[in-house]
């Protein structure tokens, strides 16, 4: 049986259970309400696009609204400018730290994975890119987090600001959970192209015939899709320097902060000029080498479009030349994203290179 789009709880998927929408008024806190059951759900994926409503704003995600600073800790590698350094706290923060805006209007984009089941401390892993404004991406930041409460069932999350009205207009909070729905009425087999609130593939292309210089997905609607997840697996036919270009914009409108590790070296840098795409790596891959990228992009217009991406690069045999982590930004705030292209300097994306695009579409 072929169905159109489906909405509802689908066992075995990960679906949006809460979506604040783009906030229309600044707030000091934003709560999901008691809609969660951490003991039953297990894992949560929380996506925060924070628009700072005040200067020096830090935003926290609080399980059950717990603001007790002695309950939280984190350890990360904070990468800003040329620095990649330890950034850790223990017992000093009012929640899981999920963003920082030094100036009003700054954008942060953080994705946090939480294991919510009680019985032990609640740990989380987060990847953020913070302080995006003008031509600057201030940081990219992988980090681990802990909430020391071992007993309480998590029934809600609260996004909390340390500044009055620090959660600015445009902020958006989404919570996804794995669905284990066992009720309802049995059906026949069903095939559907799309389920509301789930990551669903909207395109897949594999280079064949000859090496390519670009791969494009067009006919998109970023304002409806809201979030994209991009996956690239490449083989280099020559020196590569590929990146993501939005709406065919080849202007100097892409900025970033990156860090990479190569053997025992660590290097970081901020890019404020000279990019005509979101580069997926900071230097060229060698002919015949492999690599992969995974990227999450907040696509909805109204603010700069934030992304972070990561992946092992320039691989031959069992040697990975480097791993890259990048926080990126497209400075265009107005245009609806209608195309996403993987673009190389030359036709050096070899046969077998794969590019896939997923959309979340929280509103169906």
């Amino acid at each position, binding site marked *: 049986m072929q169905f159109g789009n489906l909405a509802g709880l689908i066992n075995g998927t990960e679906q949006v259970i809460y979506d604040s929408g783009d906030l229309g008024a600044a707030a000091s806190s934003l709560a999901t309400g008691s809609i969660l059951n951490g003991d039953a759900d297990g894992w949560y994926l929380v996506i925060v696009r924070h628009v700072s409503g005040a200067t020096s704003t830090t935003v926290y995600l609080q399980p059950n609204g717990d603001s007790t600073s002695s309950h939280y800790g984190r350890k*990360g590698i904070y990468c800003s400018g040329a620095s990649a350094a330890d950034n850790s706290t*223990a017992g000093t923060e009012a929640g899981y730290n999920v963003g920082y805006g030094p100036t009003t209007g700054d954008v942060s984009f953080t994705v946090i994975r939480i294991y919510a089941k009680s019985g032990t401390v609640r740990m989380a892993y987060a990847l953020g890119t913070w302080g995006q404004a003008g031509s600057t991406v201030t940081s990219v930041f992988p980090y681990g987090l802990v909430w020391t409460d071992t007993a309480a069932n998590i029934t809600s999350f609260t996004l909390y600001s340390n500044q009055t009205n620090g959660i600015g207009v445009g902020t958006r909070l989404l919570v996804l959970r794995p669905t284990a729905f066992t009720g309802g009425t049995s059906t026949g087999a069903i095939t559907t192209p799309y389920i509301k609130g789930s990551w669903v593939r909207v395109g897949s292309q594999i280079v064949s015939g000859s090496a390519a210089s670009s791969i494009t997905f067009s006919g998109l609607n970023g304002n409806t899709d809201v979030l994209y997840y991009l996956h690239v697996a490449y083989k280099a036919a020559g020196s590569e320097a590929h990146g993501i270009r939005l709406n065919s914009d080849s202007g100097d409108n892409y900025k970033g902060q990156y860090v990479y590790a190569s053997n025992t070296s660590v290097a970081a840098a901020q890019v404020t000029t000279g990019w005509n795409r979101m580069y997926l790596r900071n230097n060229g891959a060698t002919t015949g080498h492999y690599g992969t990228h995974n990227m999450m992009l907040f696509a909805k217009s109204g603010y700069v479009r934030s992304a972070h991406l990561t992946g092992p690069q320039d691989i031959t045999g069992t040697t*990975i030349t480097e791993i890259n982590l990048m926080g990126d930004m497209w400075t265009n705030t107005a245009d609806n994203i209608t195309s996403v292209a993987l673009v190389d300097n030359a036709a050096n994306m070899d046969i077998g290179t794969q590019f896939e695009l997923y959309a979340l579409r929280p509103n169906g």
Partner: protein
Amino acid sequence: MQAKLNPQGAIAGDSTSTKGKISFPGFQKVLDFTSAGNESSVSCTVSGDADKEYKILIRNLNGTYNIYLRLNATSTGYGYQSLDNNSGSVSAGRDNATSIEALALTTSICDVTLVTPSSLLKTAIMCSAAYSSGTTIDRLYWRGYVYNSTANITSLDFVPSGGTFASGTRITVLARRS
């Protein structure tokens, strides 16, 4: 109407049934394992060429042993490049003769994106944060892995580095199914 649907189509006691089976091009749960404390491994049968990517989520409650991920039950042919924060010291390293495909540190949360494209090498990017005590996380490991093979991946095998999984350890795998 709320229908009873499941991407794998399996109904308890009737694994061959297509009743309630739903097909869609997205991430679907293919393994959700919670340890009783006596298992020395857990495996998941897959087809990497078709799926291309897996999201692997691990909460390791064992304070002594890491958890390894091995592909096709193979323990050789792997390499990694790391960027770690170990008790406040940030460092990088590489190993191209390791027998470990990926690992969840002791008492950690671990997030792995495993990419298994047809005809290309298999790679993973992994982050593991390990808990110490109180409000202290003592280690953050961020690593890229490669498995030097273009063969189809047919199994994901999770193995403690010693003994058995700790009771309550959770391993969840989401596959990109089309």
